């Protein structure tokens, strides 16, 4: 076991975990104040659900020692194999304990369904969302993680079918972002548009929260990408550096499009551009040069800034642009490797590589995106027909926070002295009526 590698992957795991609360704030600031808590909760609850499933069978389905290219089997359900000291999957032996690898991969399994929640903001039944997360990670994420991330044992036996083909996806452009983006598109089609879409202003209620969330995502993403080297080494350093550069340049790319098209450099544009850059560099971070990451970043920022307008033209209410940022950004990053990969043996076209690299990348995007879209659509319809996926009109108009969670995000009135005193006296009277010492 290598203590340096283990320390880095442990630290990276904590960084990736922080991305889910970061995402919650990024999304939470973008919704209206009446649904901020529901948005935060949809993200937080996936941490609970997926962690539980990961121990029971998730890790086994994704990385178990089955011989299939489609899933890892159930041999490792309950994670009973954890006496193994080293991580001997992924095609070679890594100097980190298997339990550390499992912890690191768990964080990816957590944030992927959380990403979907932005597409159905303001209008999904909370219980239905929880059921969807259980089913979608079971049928889609866990197997797809196997397809893309599992390189099999020392001899490559049991590798995922995409990994076996040599698909390049260093940290999850397809398995995480295309996967979540396609599911988000499916779910917002199942649930339909929010009441008042295109008519009422649904502007972000707290852009400072959005900027904070984007900052946390950027910070945590170093664990996501550089941690995926599974060691403290040159590969991690390359991933770290290209992640930084692509994110910075994507922010500039998005801002440039906004300035030219809409007239202003907006804070939402800066935050969104950074996230688009993070998404696009995710599959590519260890396979491109620093200049490659500049090109990819600028392109991702500009393309995603235009892609978020698609929903207005095509008429689907992807509330927080999971499609425009994650599906488009993830696909862009994955396919760009067909051109700008300089990875030895699988170079892109610009580095003298063969067209088959581009073909493989496109195949990965289409198969992961297509599978996720179809399964998510069917699951969404099944949930809608049985327990109902959408809240009532009254609940939606008055605000989902109150109905789903019996809470409100902000107590604005107590900012002064007048109304704050009023609300605390009501609480006092209420407590006395219930015989409680307030």
């Amino acid at each position: 076991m290598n203590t340096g590698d283990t320390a880095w992957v442990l630290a990276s795991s904590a960084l990736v975990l922080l991305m889910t609360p970061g995402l919650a704030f990024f999304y939470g600031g973008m919704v209206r104040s009446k649904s901020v808590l529901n948005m935060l909760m949809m993200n937080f609850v996936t941490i609970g659900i997926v962690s539980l499933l990961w121990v029971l069978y998730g890790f086994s389905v994704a990385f178990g020692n089955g011989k299939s290219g489609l899933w890892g089997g159930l041999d490792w359900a309950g994670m009973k194999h954890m006496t193994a000291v080293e991580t001997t999957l992924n095609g070679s032996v890594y100097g980190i304990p298997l339990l550390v690898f499992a912890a690191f991969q768990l964080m990816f399994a957590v944030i992927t369904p959380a990403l979907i929640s932005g597409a159905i903001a303001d209008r999904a039944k909370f219980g239905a969302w929880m059921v969807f997360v259980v089913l979608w990670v079971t049928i889609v994420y866990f197997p797809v993680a196997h397809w893309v991330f599992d390189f099999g044992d020392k001899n490559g036996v049991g590798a995922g079918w995409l990994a076996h083909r040599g698909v390049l996806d260093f940290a999850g452009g397809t398995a995480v972002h295309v996967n979540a983006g396609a599911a988000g598109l499916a779910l917002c089609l199942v649930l339909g548009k929010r009441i008042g879409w295109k008519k009422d202003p649904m502007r972000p209620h707290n852009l400072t929260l959005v900027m904070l969330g984007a900052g946390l995502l950027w910070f945590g993403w170093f664990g996501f990408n550089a941690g995926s080297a599974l060691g403290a080494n040159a590969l991690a350093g390359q991933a770290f550096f290209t992640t930084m550069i692509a994110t910075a340049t994507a922010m500039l790319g998005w801002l440039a499009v906004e300035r030219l098209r809409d007239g202003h450099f907006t804070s939402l544009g800066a935050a969104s551009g950074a996230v688009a850059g993070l998404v696009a560099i995710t599959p590519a971070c260890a396979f491109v040069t620093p200049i490659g990451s500049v090109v990819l970043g600028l392109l991702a920022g500009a393309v995603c800034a235009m892609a978020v307008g698609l929903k207005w033209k095509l008429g689907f209410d992807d509330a927080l642009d999971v499609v425009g940022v994650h599906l488009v950004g993830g696909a862009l990053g994955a396919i760009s490797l067909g051109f700008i990969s300089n990875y030895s043996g699988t170079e892109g076209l610009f580095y003298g590589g063969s067209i088959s690299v581009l073909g493989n990348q496109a195949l990965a995007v289409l198969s992961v995106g297509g599978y996720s879209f179809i399964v998510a659509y069917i699951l969404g319809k099944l949930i809608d027909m049985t327990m109902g996926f959408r809240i009532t009109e009254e609940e939606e108009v008055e605000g989902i926070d109150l109905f789903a969670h019996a809470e409100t995000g902000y107590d604005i009135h107590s900012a002064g002295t007048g109304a704050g005193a009023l609300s605390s006296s009501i609480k006092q009277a209420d407590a006395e009526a219930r015989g409680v010492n307030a």
Partner: protein
Amino acid sequence: MKLITAVIKPHRWEEVRGALETFGVTGMTVSEVSGYGRQKGHTEVYRGAEYDIALVPKIRIEIVVDASAADDVVAIIVKTAQTGRIGDGKVWVQQVDSVVRVRTGDRDEAAL
């Protein structure tokens, strides 16, 4: 006695208050309000989507003064709040029948 209500641009508020204090107005009630007039709100752009925001922030000032001072107070507010651009606001004056000072029970002019 007259109740003077003025709705003005927020950035003119400090000027108006200063001018009224200099004139001798000793107190007022001020609130942050939203509304629109002929300027019909404004436009904000989020991720390329334009939103028409109907309401713009304003400051509402309410002052009760002796009837003889009402015209001067209105003139001061108009002079200091004016920028000449659309959205400067409105001032209006209403008759007040009676006023009571809560602390002492003084009525009408003695309560001002």
